[in-house]
């Protein structure tokens, strides 16, 4: 039965009429599903086949509004169907359903053509938000602990819920515009019923695609609210080097030595960065 459930639906959201070996699906279903006075075996099995796909597609639809806006509504559903056929859920929670979207879009760029790069940026950004929403948090290191350790010895780990993204498009502004346009959808929780196809062809006002422009984003949470913060390239580089295990001093020296900026008071700038990041609780003991 599970093979039948996972099998993709037809373009008209029905169960496929033929089984994998070419035999009639009606015959296959009647081998193990009883008909009743209103529904054939095929129709009864089809309810579950449709429910499976409606549920998982609906989940991706709601969780990836940015990717949906990038590729378009219809193409998104095709992409999602192909993704789920390649990567069925292997987690007890639907939260993880999109965890391999980035890999999928990277490996199979045709699904997001002609905006592959933008789609990849967007899905990285949207997955980072999933992580920031309910990812683990470690005890932040205190300012005193930071001050008590010499910079050449001090190593800091970044919070597991914090993602640092170097992106080629301004997807943050784009997603804000998309969310402003769309009303939040609410997903059913304990009911096992899915009686409607995903919202496949709603007409929505178009939002202008983001321009190509390198941005550096920190996707994080503070007081359990989700935020994304743009960083300048040097600040981003410092954080990334800290995340790779360099000491504070080594990270700062490397960034300062490679920075193109000259008219800057580096000690003051670095102090401001660390004050902000510490206040946000981004650092943990390495």
């Amino acid at each position: 039965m599970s093979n039948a459930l996972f099998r993709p639906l037809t373009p008209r959201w029905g169960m496929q009429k033929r089984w994998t070996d070419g035999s009639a699906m009606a015959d296959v279903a009647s081998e193990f599903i009883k008909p009743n006075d209103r529904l054939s075996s095929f129709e009864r099995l089809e309810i579950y086949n449709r429910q499976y796909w409606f549920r998982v597609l609906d989940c991706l639809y709601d969780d990836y509004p940015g990717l949906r806006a990038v590729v378009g509504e219809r193409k998104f559903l095709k992409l999602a169907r192909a993704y789920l056929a390649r990567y069925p859920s292997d987690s007890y929670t639907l939260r993880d359903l999109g965890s391999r979207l980035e890999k999928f879009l990277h490996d199979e760029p045709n699904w997001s053509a002609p905006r592959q790069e933008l789609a990849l940026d967007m899905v990285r950004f949207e997955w980072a938000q999933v992580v920031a929403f309910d990812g683990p948090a470690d005890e932040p290191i205190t300012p005193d602990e930071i001050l008590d350790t010499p910079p050449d010895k001090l190593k800091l780990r970044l919070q597991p819920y914090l993602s640092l993204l170097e992106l080629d498009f301004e997807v943050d502004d784009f997603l804000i515009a998309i969310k402003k346009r769309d009303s939040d959808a609410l997903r059913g929780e304990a009911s096992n019923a899915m009686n409607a196809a995903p919202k496949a062809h709603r007409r929505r006002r178009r939002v202008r695609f983001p321009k190509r422009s390198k941005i550096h984003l920190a996707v994080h949470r503070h007081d359990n609210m989700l935020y994304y913060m743009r960083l300048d390239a040097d600040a981003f580089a410092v954080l990334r080097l800290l995340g790779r295990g360099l000491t504070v001093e080594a990270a700062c020296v490397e960034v300062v030595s490679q920075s193109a900026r000259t008219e800057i008071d580096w000690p003051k700038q670095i102090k401001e960065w660390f004050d902000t990041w510490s206040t946000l609780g981004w650092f943990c003991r390495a």
Partner: protein
Amino acid sequence: MPANPFNGYTDYGIGIGLRVPHYRHILAKKPVVDWFEIISENFMVDGGRPLEVLDAILEQYRVVQHGVAIYFGSADKFNREHLRRLKRLVKYTKTPWLSDHLCWGSVDGRYTHDLLPMPYTFAVARHTAEKIRAARDFLEVPICVENVSSYAEYHASEMTEWEFLTEVSELADCGILLDVNNIYVSSQNHNFNPYDYLNNIPHHRVGQMHIAGHSKFEKYILDTHDHPVLDPVWKMYAHAIKLIGPTATLLEWDDRIPSFDEVHNEALKANKFRDAQLAASTA
């Protein structure tokens, strides 16, 4: 049975499912609610807003965990990570009992995220009961299994659904979360008398009950949890209360969720039947 081993000898009244659209209202207004049922999997996370909300709820309310992904009926072995996280949550919430569905939903590590009906055979009953026992031993909390609504039946079945529920619960020595709406939905989809179901299960094992709304389609009924409870279900609930006693009852409303007050008021209608039964039993 108001209090029994399967609900941790508690005597809870009418609860509602804790759902995201109501968080703000509940946390701000702190309405009087006897208990909340949480979907375990929604809170088996490592941090963030879900756990902050749970903390606030636990400070004020009694909470019972209801799961959607243990899949006692799956042939797969348990997902150990799932069980470990579930146990951590059980210790955190101090849920007096825990419920999940009598169904399958995963195969070879792939999840359908659905509550699929099982073939009602003795072999499947034994397998399922073993898994329930193993889960209870690991989680160290009483377990109630919930009958699911279904839209298909198998040729392989050797007994009725209520006989299967009885067989599994006796073999596992576990409780039953009796979903009255699910019985009604399945009875319409499979042409059986829902009162035969209610009359022929081990009433002493019922630790909790569910009520909910459903949707009628041309050829079948779907368990949508997006309506008030319908009259036939209230009648069955009244009958169940007579058989079982005023048991902890939970209204499920999961889609097109109205205001908190509307959901809560719908749930509190169950009090009419509970009070009538209490009056009858003390007369």
